């Protein structure tokens, strides 16, 4: 379905009430895998971080990674969940080449954490997203389908398998149905994923970088006619891997479902793929019948029974949670909800704090990260925090602006240089010759020239219309290609015209 034949979002919401369910997978940042001692480091040579256990060799057995269990409990606690006193792993059986045992060791009806919630802010209001469960499982390997146009298995000439990711610990966090969000549904979904990401990072259990697949979202959506209680048939859009995509995917699916339903069609229960380029989704595997994973308790592992003492110890180590920290920072910085939310959505709170720690004023740190650097990140399609510039470097740029050695325009050029790998800010200033010129002898000629070229304006100023000086300052800035110290230029002009 092309985006042009879709019913408008507003029309869709006139008739229908969206219900969402979000499943978020988080790869834990443990040093070793869920059930063996292999390294989890990202980006290694394919199939170099494998052993008999994560390759599913005959005879090999799993052993639970205690750090992963600890991380799961901490996530559960931070999501206000109950922590199971006793729970088991279960086998989820299905055949797929990138899963060596042809079953995934996961949890089924006995998750480690259950019945919690996460409060998120949407347009100044608090939304409580209820959490059904958070459970532990292992990641699969990766299939690379070669030779086809789409990178998907259909049409590929052959496939390559990389098992390095196989067995990396995952926590899957599943919401209860999110109802009643109406037209805010896409924003609620986005805010939930953003808040969850902040939480995961604050806990230090994962970097939760969506572009690296460390955090992946499956978005379920169904529509029901307004006023009806029964849920409609849902679609599940897989691997929606940025905050913006979460919002777009939900929005698209609302429009698509509404279009199909309004035309008298029926929604097929299926998985769908999201396309970043045009924001649409297309059908994937059709679930003709409910998939039968033949879950049963994993006989190779003993139950996990975290003692209440341990759980309380872990509760005591929870860091200040992001929502509380945000409230504190918002008060400290005196910023409004919108600005605060922008910082959260851009994922820049931590770098801003680091920049402040490196000596910058809070205002300046916020301004650079939320403005210029967020813009650069958007252009590059990456998260701001991953730009190749450090908090210390941003603090240095801010300091140079503060001292008047750079103005904003020049500072942006310095940032260009740093991002281009030209070194520290001072080195970029030096190499590119970007210092603000405030030396009177260097500025004098330009000032004289501007006065001569704009005699009329000069007369007005002499006559007392001091505010007209801006035009002359602008002319000087132009001839000096922005490097002049504007304040000093103003002083010099007024001096020459005998006004000061």
């Amino acid at each position, binding site marked *: 379905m092309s985006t042009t034949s879709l019913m408008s979002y507003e029309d869709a919401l006139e008739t229908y009430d969206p219900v969402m369910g979000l499943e978020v997978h988080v790869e834990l940042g443990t040093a070793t895998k869920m059930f063996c001692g292999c390294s989890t480091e990202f980006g290694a040579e394919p199939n170099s971080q494998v052993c*008999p256990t994560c*390759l599913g060799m005959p005879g090999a057995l799993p052993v639970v990674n205690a750090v992963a269990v600890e991380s799961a409990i901490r996530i559960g606690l931070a999501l206000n969940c109950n922590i199971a006193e006793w729970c088991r792993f279960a086998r989820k059986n299905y055949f797929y080449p990138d899963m060596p045992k042809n079953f995934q060791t996961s949890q089924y009806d006995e998750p480690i954490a259950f019945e919690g919630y996460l409060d998120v802010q949407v347009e100044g209001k608090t939304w409580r997203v209820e959490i059904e469960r958070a459970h532990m499982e292992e990641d699969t390997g990766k299939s690379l389908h070669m030779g086809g146009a789409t990178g998907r298995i259909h049409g590929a000439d052959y496939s390559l398998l990389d098992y390095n990711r196989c067995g990396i610990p995952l926590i899957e966090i599943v919401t209860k149905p999110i109802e009643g969000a109406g037209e805010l549904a896409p924003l609620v979904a986005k805010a939930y994923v953003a808040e969850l990401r902040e939480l995961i990072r604050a806990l230090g259990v994962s970097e939760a970088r969506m572009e690296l697949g460390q955090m992946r979202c499956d978005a379920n959506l169904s529509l029901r006619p307004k006023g009806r209680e029964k849920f409609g048939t849902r679609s599940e859009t897989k691997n929606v891997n940025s905050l913006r995509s979460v919002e777009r995917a939900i929005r698209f699916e609302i429009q698509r479902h509404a279009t199909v339903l309004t035309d008298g069609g029926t929604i097929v229960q299926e998985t769908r793929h999201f396309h970043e380029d045009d924001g649409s989704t297309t059908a994937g595997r059709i679930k003709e019948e409910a998939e039968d994973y033949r879950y049963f308790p994993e006989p190779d592992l003993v139950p996990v029974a975290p003692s209440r003492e341990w759980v309380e110890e872990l509760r005591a180590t929870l860091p200040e949670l992001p929502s509380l920290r945000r409230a504190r920072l918002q008060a400290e910085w005196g910023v409004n909800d919108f600005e605060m939310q922008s910082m959260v959505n851009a994922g820049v709170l931590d770098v801003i704090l680091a920049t402040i720690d490196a000596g910058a004023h809070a205002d300046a740190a916020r301004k650079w990260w939320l403005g210029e650097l967020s813009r650069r990140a958007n252009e590059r399609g990456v998260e701001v925090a991953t730009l190749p510039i450090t908090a210390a470097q941003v603090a240095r740029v801010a300091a140079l602006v503060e001292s008047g050695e750079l103005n904003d325009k020049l500072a942006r050029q310095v940032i260009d240089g740093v991002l281009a790998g030209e070194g520290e800010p001072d080195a970029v200033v030096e190499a590119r010759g970007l210092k603000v010129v405030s030396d009177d002898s260097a500025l004098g000629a330009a000032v004289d020239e501007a006065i001569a070229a704009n005699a009329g304006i000069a007369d007005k100023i002499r006559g007392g219309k001091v505010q007209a000086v801006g035009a002359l300052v602008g002319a000087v800035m132009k001839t000096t290609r922005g490097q002049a110290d504007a304040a000093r230029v103003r002083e010099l002009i007024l001096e020459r015209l005998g006004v000061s």
Partner: protein
Amino acid sequence: MTETIRWTAAETASAIADGKVTAVEVAQAHLDRIEAVDAKVHAFLHVDADGALAAAKAVDDARARGDRLGPLAGVPLALKDVFTTKGVPTTCGSKMLDGWKPPYDATLTRRLKDAGVVILGKTNMDEFAMGSSTENSAYGPTGNPWDPSRVPGGSGGGSAAAIASFQAPLAIGTDTGGSIRQPAALTGTVGVKPTYGGVSRYGLVAFSSSLDQGGPCARTVLDAALLHEAIAGHDPLDSTSIDAPVPNVVEAARSGSVKGLRIGVVKEFAGEGYQAGVLARFAEAVELLRELGAEIVEISCPNFTYAMPAYYLIAPSEASSNLARFDAMRYGLRVGDDGEHSAEEVMSLTREAGFGAEVKRRIMLGTYALSSGYYDAYYGQAQKVRTLITRDFEAAFGQVDVLVSPTTPTTAFPIGERADDPMAMYLADLCTIPSNLAGNAAMSLPCGLADEDGLPVGLQIIAPAMADDRLYRVGAAVEAAYLSRWGAPLLDRAPAL
């Protein structure tokens, strides 16, 4: 060297330690025996002569250096082909793993090597340990050394036949529903299923994870104890491995006695389907125990009746999942990889060609039992039965120290007789399955020959979990009494091959 092969493991180890014979000579004598008789028995799937001689030489070198040798150093052993051996073929009796050389040693393999045990090769078995006759091996059946036209039991028929035919003094088996004890009974040897978790399963190719347990096969109770001690103990690589001291089985085997013990006879293990000669030898064994000073108590374990159906739901369910990994993607057989077939088709073609009929039957049974809508009625119900059986044992062990029964209802049956009748085959494990479901320890040892066919009968001794030493204490007493009654080991009466 004909005498050498008839020595017990204990005798062999001390002869090597004392310098009466070298480990290489012992290994060579057994390799010669294999060469001479295994064409008739077919106990081995793979003989690793080079590996065995090298391991033997290492023991001789250690002795020459003056190193202290362990209690089994230089003793040859036949290893069931279900344990991984680094660089040495491991097939599980299946075409699926034809030619597979594992990249790692099982923990049990590692411990045997560390103990200086000389692994002669890998023994035949029912495919993936599914069967009670070794006829389900993709590589052809094993003959019973007492009569090669009969089965040696299964799934570990190769291991039992190897020791019964003096091709090795020791062997390793695995027991999921009786695969160590039933072959021991049918071949006149000793076999022990240790307490579940007593011997590491790391590197044991899984049939049914919650039931599988590796254990010793030997010709004497003491030899079984020495081997048991060498392979048992906690393994951090197996989460289900017990982290507690191993019961002192060797000490128990050296001090056999039943005086003052209360011994239970399970009344459910008798009746229809039991061969007269088996029941007669069992009744004599009970009488012998009484004569030796035990108090005999009749015990009822009413839920044992449901052990067989519960087993045939739980084991196939786990197997259907455990065997899913054989998909041609990473190792083993691959069929249909011709550029024309998709990965899914290759998986399907490989599994169709690679698995035998019994394995397919159990995969289908298990897949069905775990299916949505059937899980509660089948797998769930079977787990409840499992709990009831465990409670029956707990109640019984509240009254007695050990239980006894025939190991299996009949003596060795002819090859082919039950091949087309799975139910008849499954009945061979009637008496052994409850201990797998409950996870406790059990032993089979010879108690004579059946009158009607002159074939060995096994006596089963069952002990509570973690009380494996009781098996050896009782077993050694019974063995000594029979030896004095018979004047020679039972195996001396087996016809020459």
